[in-house]
């Protein structure tokens, strides 16, 4: 509402309103663009390969970030256990795919597709039920407690699940056999882009669209948005708040299951502590994109994926892999300084 009012006033007052902060911001963005441009000109093939790798990695991060964003949008709770549910999703997928179906990239499509669907269903159902249980046990009783309390139980749950994962996976990363083909789809100047990367990366998009449809278009989604805005008012309007929140956690858990399977296929390595590291990155992505905003979460994740791979893969004046983590989080700080609501933040439920 207020946004449209100020847009009308923009043309006449736009020039004098460029303050110091936005100017610095623009300058920094320009600097990054120039750096990318020079790299593109110097090594076009490496640039393209790095871009594709970063995009794929970012889309994988995006799946985990969606789960954080969904729950935060409804409850304003950072569900730290989400990353560990995702890790268990990987472990379950790995167990089902290798022990039950002994899947391998040499399998025929006729076997691969039904087996993958069964694995996916298993991971989604288990993770969804687990996540809903976590909400019931660790968050629901604390709903009217100070906001710090559920945050602490979330961290507790995260540790608990990590130890469950440690039992199953062990402390060393476990190698997952190649489930999807590692053959090249195409090759740019000797850098190959492979089928498994393509399939895993592209899979994020239907998940995102389905989720946006669910939240924006369905009755259940309406109930979710109403609950996000005001739980008491939603309850007065006849919405079963507890059920809606349970449903949200259920969906977020299912997402973690999908992410778990795709991550295992993508990295071909799973570890009991992958949820912590990836959770931190996914949470950062969600904040970067505007937490609570679903397309924002994926956008933020893609940006982080691109930043990581550009920094490590490009040669001309790239700080290199020694600095990846520092750069990701510096950019987070910068973006939040210039846009505290995140990149697409204005559409958060609590923002109206």
């Amino acid at each position, binding site marked *: 509402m207020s946004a449209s009012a100020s847009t009308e006033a923009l043309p006449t007052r736009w020039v004098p309103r460029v303050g110091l902060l936005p100017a610095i911001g623009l300058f920094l963005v320009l600097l990054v663009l120039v750096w990318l441009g020079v790299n593109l000109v110097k*090594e076009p093939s*490496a640039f393209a*390969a*790095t871009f594709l*790798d*970063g995009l794929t*990695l970012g889309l*994988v*991060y995006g799946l985990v970030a969606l789960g954080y964003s969904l729950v935060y949008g409804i409850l304003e709770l950072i569900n730290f256990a989400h990353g560990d549910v995702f890790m268990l999703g990987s472990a379950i997928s790995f167990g089902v795919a290798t022990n039950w179906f002994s899947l391998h990239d040499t399998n025929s499509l006729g076997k691969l597709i039904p087996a993958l669907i069964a694995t996916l269903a298993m991971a989604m159902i288990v993770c969804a039920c687990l996540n809903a249980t976590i909400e019931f*046990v*660790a968050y*629901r*009783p*604390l709903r009217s*407690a100070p906001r710090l*309390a559920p945050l*602490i*139980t979330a961290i*507790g*749950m995260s*540790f*608990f699940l*990590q*130890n469950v994962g*440690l039992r199953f996976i*062990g*402390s*060393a*990363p*476990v*190698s997952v*056999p190649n489930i999807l083909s*590692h053959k090249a789809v195409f090759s740019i100047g*000797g*850098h*190959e882009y*492979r089928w498994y990367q393509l399939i895993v990366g592209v899979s994020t998009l239907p998940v995102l669209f389905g989720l946006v449809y669910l939240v924006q278009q369905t009755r259940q989604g309406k109930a979710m948005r109403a609950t996000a805005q005001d739980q008491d008012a939603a309850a007065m309007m006849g919405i079963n708040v507890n059920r809606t929140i349970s449903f949200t956690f259920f969906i977020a858990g299912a997402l973690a299951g999908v992410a778990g399977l795709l*991550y295992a296929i993508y*990295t*071909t*390595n799973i*570890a009991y*502590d*992958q949820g912590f*590291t*990836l959770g931190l*990155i996914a949470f950062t992505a969600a904040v970067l994109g505007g937490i609570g905003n679903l397309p924002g979460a994926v956008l933020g994740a893609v940006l982080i994926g691109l930043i*990581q*791979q550009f*920094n*490590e*893969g*490009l*040669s001309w004046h*790239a700080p*290199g*892999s*020694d600095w*990846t*983590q520092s750069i990701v989080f510096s950019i987070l700080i910068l973006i939040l300084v210039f846009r505290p609501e995140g990149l697409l933040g204005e559409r958060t439920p609590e923002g109206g």
Partner: protein
Amino acid sequence: MSRRLFLGALAAIAVILALVAAGCGGSKKSSSTTTGGGGGGGGGGNASALPASSCSPIYYEGSGKPEFIFASDLPLQGSGRTQTVQMTEAIKFILKQHNFKAGDHTVGYQSCDDATAQAGKWASEKCSANANAYANNKSVIGVIGTFNSGCAEIEIPILNRAPDGPIGMISPANTYVGLTHAGPGTAAGEPDKYYPTGKRNYIRIVAADDYQGAADATLAKQLGLKKVYILNDKEAYGQGVATDFKNSVSKLGLTVAGFSAWNGKAASYEGIATKIKQTGADGVFLGGLICENGGKLVKDLRAGLGANVKLLAPDGFTPISAVVQGAGQAAEDMTVSVAGQPNENLGATGKKFVKDFGATQSSGQVDPYSSYAAQAAEVLLTAIENSDGTRAGVSDQLFKTDVSDGILGAFKINAEGDTNANPVTIYSIKGGKQTTLKVITPPTSLVKAA
């Protein structure tokens, strides 16, 4: 309200459970804890045990109670477990051969764990807790360990300051240069900062990383590599060995295409592979530990660089079975260097040990590190035998070590605690198994450059 409290309590219990699970993930055997008190010293033989939280019960089958105990300090959890557990078996084997005696002294042994289940490798808090336990238990006369140099950095100074000490320490596996002498890859103040009393108390019977870096550089040259890219995992060991390798290859006339880090927590190393490919390097050195996501790193490098680029790893990538498990097919043809010599190169005494000890093992296989652990036990028992029965006496005797026909052959320990026998074995991974490629003893001139 009471229901909420109840559920809150449930959540709290869940947290406590998680923490407890974190603490006891290793499933330790329970053992009888003997109460403290200063034993040892006289000929009484009433050694008290180290805490059961980290250590096995005392292994002693002689008469009465042992006069002294010595401990081994190894990471008994994580991917290296099979290897380190066999090392403790080898130590027991030697102690039993000596009838639990070192000269006139009766000696028992405890195996202590410096790893946590979470880390799957050594953990600094365990190292310091163990070292303090050794220092505070007067029965402890010497320590075999550690396996990891990072852990040794923590333990050496604590044992150096121990009462009636220093307590002598003998490592069968530490390779970080700065523990015993300064060099290009070491930090300021090393090695003196590890010896606060000014008296040395630490020796090792394997070649340090300056030898290993030089051996890997020699290998790179022999493989005909022209341009190598060097990665490190940002840890003291990884950076050290990577720097040693860098200096040695430069001396041998190879080009260093780049020197950068990999993050053990990253989800992808495709970017790093792209960058290395752009440099045109024909070899990559992985200075670091396999447990820093080394398996995934090898996979991504192999996928991005193709089959013709050589991957060279130091002994951080052991046990080799863990590399194969983590990297699968991608590990094929990579080389792993390990300080020390393979069992098949041992002399008659060593071969006899491998045969006799192998017969006691269900697998029948003897890991090379077991031979080193057994040799360390021999050296320590000799030092106890020749000592005056005090900690300081044993520590002094360690530096007088001069073995003429040991399990590892003939070697001497110098004043800095280093051995004069410095072979480095290069293993190659073929068909998912380790095969010995060659043994390189790099020339001193090259090691000086490292």
